[in-house]
């Protein structure tokens, strides 16, 4: 799954992050050097990459922890603003336009002989992860996108398929609360 925040900090992820930074810097330096036609930029860039890369590989915790945390913080701040923007478009553009057609929910008081109760059947264990009946052969392993699409088909809310790109974007912008500890320890099983 695409995430905006960097993976949990460890020596391996720090070294990997160091290489990515070196790669990014070399690309920028090469580009600037090409634009300006100056070799000085190239030399300075190479010096930086060699120093930063070597020290980063040897002492990742001491060298790369600060830029790693700074990058993660920047990503989190960006995701906060971006989510607000995307949600704004969803609520104040898409849903408002769709809502002009009216709602299929029976919100009026029923006639004396009718009821607003909707008959429901028991859910299969496979459907416990979602709030609607899973289609035959469907499983949680197929992911939330398949589950969402199956709901749009089963409930005949076909228009909601258009909402999917926004939901994917929101999930890619998702970041966990900055906590030192997880709420559940057992990720191993």
């Amino acid at each position: 799954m695409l995430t905006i925040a960097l993976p949990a900090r460890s020596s391996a992820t720090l070294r990997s992050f160091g290489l990515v930074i070196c790669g990014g810097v070399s690309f920028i330096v090469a580009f600037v050097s090409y634009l300006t036609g100056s070799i000085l930029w190239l030399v300075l860039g190479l010096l930086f990459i060699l120093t930063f890369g070597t020290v980063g590989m040897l002492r990742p915790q001491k060298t790369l922890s600060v830029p790693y945390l700074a990058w993660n913080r920047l990503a989190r701040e960006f995701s906060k603003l971006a989510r607000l923007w995307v949600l704004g478009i969803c609520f104040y553009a898409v849903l408002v336009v769709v809502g002009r057609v009216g709602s299929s929910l029976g919100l009026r008081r029923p006639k004396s002989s009718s009821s607003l109760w909707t008959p429901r059947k028991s859910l299969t264990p496979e459907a416990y992860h979602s709030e609607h009946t899973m289609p035959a052969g469907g499983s949680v392993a197929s992911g939330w996108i398949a589950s969402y699409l199956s709901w749009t088909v089963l409930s005949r809310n076909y228009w909601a398929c258009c909402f999917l790109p926004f939901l994917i974007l929101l999930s890619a912008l998702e970041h966990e609360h900055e906590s030192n500890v997880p709420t559940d320890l057992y990720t191993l099983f």
Partner: protein
Amino acid sequence: MIRLCLAVIATFLGFIFTLPIVLLGLPFWMVAAVTKSMSRYFEPRVIPWKKVIEFDPVVGWKPRANLDVYCSFQAGHFHVRTDDHGWRGEASLQDSDVVVFGDSYAFAYGTDDKKAFFHNSSGTLLIKSIGSPGYNMVQELLWMRRLAPELRGKLVVWFIYYGNDLYDNLLPNFSTYRMPFVRERNGSWEIVDWHVNPRRWPCSGDNKFRLKQKWHTTFVDGALSQRAYSAAAYLLGQGKDLSAAADFSLAVVSIPWPLQLNQEDWSHTMKRFGDPKAFDPLLPDRNVKEICRELEIPFIAGKDILSLAHHIPGDGHWNSSGHRCITATISDIHANYAVKGRARVEETFTRNRGVAVTSIRA
């Protein structure tokens, strides 16, 4: 149909407005994805957890014997070595002075052997760890019973982790694994293990979908917690009886859920489950301490000796500093209170490091 047409048009227009977000976010997504995918080349070859544990017909599962592998976890990887019986630590059970029973904390999850609390750096105190990730107190008691003949004259330290132990004592499964549990019948508790077999437990979502009940059980004074603490009292009582019968000294060390150590994280998490004020982070230590006092078992609250700095960020298990702290605590218990023979509770006092201990004397 009109709704669908309007939705398509609105989505198209909406997506034009979100395009800057996608473009600005691209560097972040790319850096995160490449960092994640490249990090595996800097890690040793790790094996999946299914290959670290094996089925046990009574306890449910146990670590495999003679492992020398790397395991991956939330914050990287760690080196695991096990002995002929599947337990970590260099000392044999026979030679050890202290035997620790517990779950992933006793297993030293997330830590290399050389940095774990049972590593014999000074050579003065030999500690053996009997534990596996996911164990509840029932499983730990069953191991105590099974190994009782080898515990004679030793100090046994029982780790109780508040994150899930008290709740899991009442459950027949841990994720898809079957485990023994306790149930109340005719006013008394009993251990149930007839359902333990290698087959996958059919409903495995408990840990994700019953978080509210889990935290209520441990941290909110009510019917659920009364039941859980009653079960814990039964299990600790069984442990106490066993210690008397098998002639070993028993002490209990509580392991705090790391959230209990940080007020901000605590409030933020508990908000998800209702009024955060209803959740009392001190309740487990109060109750377990009272149970231990009645049973005359020495009790040390982990919350008093551990801080958030002793834990691995993003994971929650102990780091090397946390393990050193636990080694020091076990050494203290052994040096001061592990008196061979019958023990008698005398008084509660505060030790020089601020640890509240119920002392015992011969």
